[in-house]
């Protein structure tokens, strides 16, 4: 049923597409993270700005991806931007919500103690608020990575120069082996990314692990 011979013959192309998949994902994750962090910090203590940021990023998320890639093809042509702009836009709502929830979950008594100890606002943000928001920020990163890895397959609709492993899904939809290579590869990549960020989360927050390991006294 599965044509192992085809896979063996195309192992180089598969590796190349895997690399492209990771690259398209990584760019979107990094750029989206930077934009979202800026938006979150800017709107954190501005309730109206916050409503706006969450609202707009939420609406963007509802636009069908096929339509968005098609729309940007007519603006930015067949460039990398056509793939990356929609990918980045889709990460925003995931990141922003997690970042804001994480930053807002810092307990009031902790903030009061920080203020009373004489932290400047920037010191408080960098040394207290952001570190305490890490678990949720990295949760956002996990979700965004899984979501983006799936969406990268859709960039194959822009043209054969894109798509990552999605290229194989689109190239010959009736050739099961090739479709499976694209789909299974994409799923495996998503699972691997999720597991890697889960590890990162635990490593960055030894204090959260101490919570579960609290001794019974």
């Amino acid at each position, binding site marked *: 049923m599965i044509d192992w011979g085809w896979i063996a013959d195309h192992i180089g192309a598969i590796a190349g597409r895997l690399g492209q998949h990771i690259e398209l994902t990584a760019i979107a994750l990094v750029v989206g993270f930077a934009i979202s962090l800026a938006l979150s910090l800017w709107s954190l203590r501005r309730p109206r700005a916050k409503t706006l940021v969450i609202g707009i990023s939420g609406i963007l998320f509802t636009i069908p991806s096929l339509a968005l890639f098609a729309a940007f093809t007519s603006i930015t042509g067949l460039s990398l931007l056509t793939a990356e702009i929609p990918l980045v836009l889709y990460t925003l709502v995931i990141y922003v919500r997690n970042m804001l929830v994480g930053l807002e979950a810092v*307990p009031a*008594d*902790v903030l009061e103690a920080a203020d*009373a*100890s*004489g932290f400047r606002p920037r010191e408080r943000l960098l040394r207290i608020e952001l570190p*305490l928001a890490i678990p949720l920020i990295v949760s956002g990163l996990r979700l965004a990575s899984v979501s983006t890895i799936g969406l990268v397959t859709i960039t194959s609709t822009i043209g054969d120069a894109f798509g990552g492993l999605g290229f194989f899904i689109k190239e010959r939809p009736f050739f099961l082996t090739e479709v499976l290579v694209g789909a299974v590869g994409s799923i495996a990549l998503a699972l691997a990314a999720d597991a890697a960020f889960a590890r990162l989360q635990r490593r960055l*927050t030894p*204090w959260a692990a*101490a919570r579960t390991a609290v001794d019974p006294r």
Partner: protein
Amino acid sequence: MGTAERVVFEHVSKRYPGTGTGNPGAVEDLSLEVPAGKICVLVGPSGCGKTTSLKMVNRLIEPTSGRILIGDTDVARRDVIELRRSIGYVIQQVGLFPHQTVGENVATVPRLLGWEPARQRARAAELLELVGLDPGRYAGRYPTALSGGERQRVGVARALAADPPVLLMDEPFGAVDPIVRERLQNELLRLQEELAKTIIFVTHDIDEAIKMGDLVAVMQVGGHLAQFGPPAEILANPASEFVARFVGADRGLKRLALVRVGELELREATTARPGEDAAAVRPRAAADSFPYVLLVDEANRPIGWLDERRIPASGPLVVDHAEAESPLFDRHTTLKDALSMLLEAGVQAGIVVGGAGAVEGLVTVEMIMERVRPA
């Protein structure tokens, strides 16, 4: 150790827009002076403005009018960040930073002040020691692995880290159980004997105010100062109907809180060690009008009581012979707390122990009653 500084409130008011002076948290024309090195307790019902008054000292809240001096300097003229780094602050929920170890939490202000890391660590260890936590065991832990009492001790250590002349404490022991609270109060009083900081302490509990305060400021809703003076004076001569009611009908009993166990002439305890020959111990118990022997360990720490009847005729004493321990007191325990603990435990005598837990003597119900009886 640095020197303490006086704190002066001069016609300080805080009004919140919208409502009149009756609104909760407001402060109306508060004037009082806390001399350097003294504990002043702000006490009153909720909404009386006591916490607002406290937070105006380190400018977490800015007054509407009036001024607050530390030493001779108006706090409003000082850089707010520098001001806060020079004032210790302890709150009920403690507010430890959960992502930092106990040692890092304690070193918060030294780190902000840019001390060398080695000096920060040494200072943190010194302070943990001071509040009774072994630095070797505690410095590397995260706050979530601490009990409520331990967390509060770390909070006090953090507040003292940069040796501030003034300490602000907002219901610091309000969230721990009564036994731990009593112990923490005693520890703070012991610390204060060494440190002599100027401490402003907020509580809604009049008993705590009487116990902790060199001076007590009773506040009433609307932010008015109802009375300001030493606790004995407030108990003896309440300035108004409000103060009398707030202090409560049991003023006689409360006056017991003005006297501490350490001020009594303690009764000596007849003690024995496990392994001692019962035959030798028996006559000692019989000779005492209080016919009990206190079994203690090699460091003189109490193990339990031996009733005369439970001392075997001969052979070595064993730990199993001892029964139910009495409440343990500290020199700073007030007679009121001591009496209440004795009644609670249903026993005649409590054991006074020193810092290391060694027996110093006994306090009996009778001795306390003697103090209540008018001379």
